């Protein structure tokens, strides 16, 4: 993918993340008002298509966004180039999406 397309993809994923972060924080602050424990949270998230999709999308956006960002940092500050740069960027993506997907699975499934 060209540098410009990576740049665009990073902007688009940022636009996806922003409202989801606000939703996450908003719901947390709202839901915590009357006191809440993990069992109660899980009872609401488990089996929920809405929360599964929201957090799934968020995790995907974060993984793409962060992998591209770290790619730029490695390029500019550590002079990584070419194939090595691509391999590391993909690795960052795979690690993040795996960790994120596990977390989403744990609260939704």
């Amino acid at each position: 993918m060209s540098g410009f397309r990576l740049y665009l993809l990073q902007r688009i994923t940022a636009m996806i993340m922003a409202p989801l972060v606000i939703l996450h924080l908003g719901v947390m602050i709202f839901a915590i008002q009357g006191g809440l424990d993990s069992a109660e949270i899980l009872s609401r998230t488990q089996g929920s298509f809405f929360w599964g999709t929201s957090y799934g999308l968020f995790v995907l956006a974060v993984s793409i966004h962060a992998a591209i960002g770290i790619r730029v940092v490695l390029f500019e500050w550590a002079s990584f180039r070419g194939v090595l740069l691509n391999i590391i960027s993909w690795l960052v993506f795979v690690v993040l999406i795996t960790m994120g997907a596990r977390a989403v699975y744990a609260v939704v499934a």
Partner: protein
Amino acid sequence: MQESTDILEVGVWRGDVTGGQLVSYQVPRQSSQTILDVVTWIQRELDPGLSYRFSCRVGMCGSCAMMVNGIPRWTCRTHVQKVVQDNRLTIEPMRNMPVIKDLVSNMDEFFAKWKLAEGQFHGRKTRYDPIEPLLPDSPRRLAASAAIECINCGICYASCDVVSWNPAYLGPAALNRAWSLVNDERDIGQQSRLNAIAADAGCHNCHSHANCATYCPNELNPTASIAGLKRLAARAAFAGKI
């Protein structure tokens, strides 16, 4: 004018492509003295072998830029009084450009990037066609005007960290030039310009940290021009044009 001390301690970078170091000179201080005056005084009075570049001495030609106390400046229009620190000055060749000798930097690549960014005008008319009317207050003409007064001094380019990290990056001056032509209604080379500014060395490398806009002596704003190019290229990408 009240002067704090009569003698300036000036460190001037002397050397060539193989390396060099700062050499100290004592220069008498004068009223309304510019950095270029200091360098000229050293060459005339102390060391005729000192190489540096200037032409107009009035901020028109863009040939006299040097690093002064670590900051790129047009030396003919920079007063000693404004930049001196503890009576000391350090004068070095431009950052982000290879040196030729002493204070003379090699601007070949800087200008090559103007061409790479499609900084040349592509007209569609000949001398036999009537002159095209352009409304002075049309939005595109105003956008072009905001970017047009560049004197090619390279100060923005020397101040840009992204150029130092990614030597292929086209840089603020070339992209600012491309933006002024994007807004030129007479230009028919917009597709090739679009390809050039969205290529790997193009506008998206800019981090908008605005060093270029801070130091441009003509108070241009390459950061804003590059932001315009980013928007343009993004729209073109969604429209499938790049």
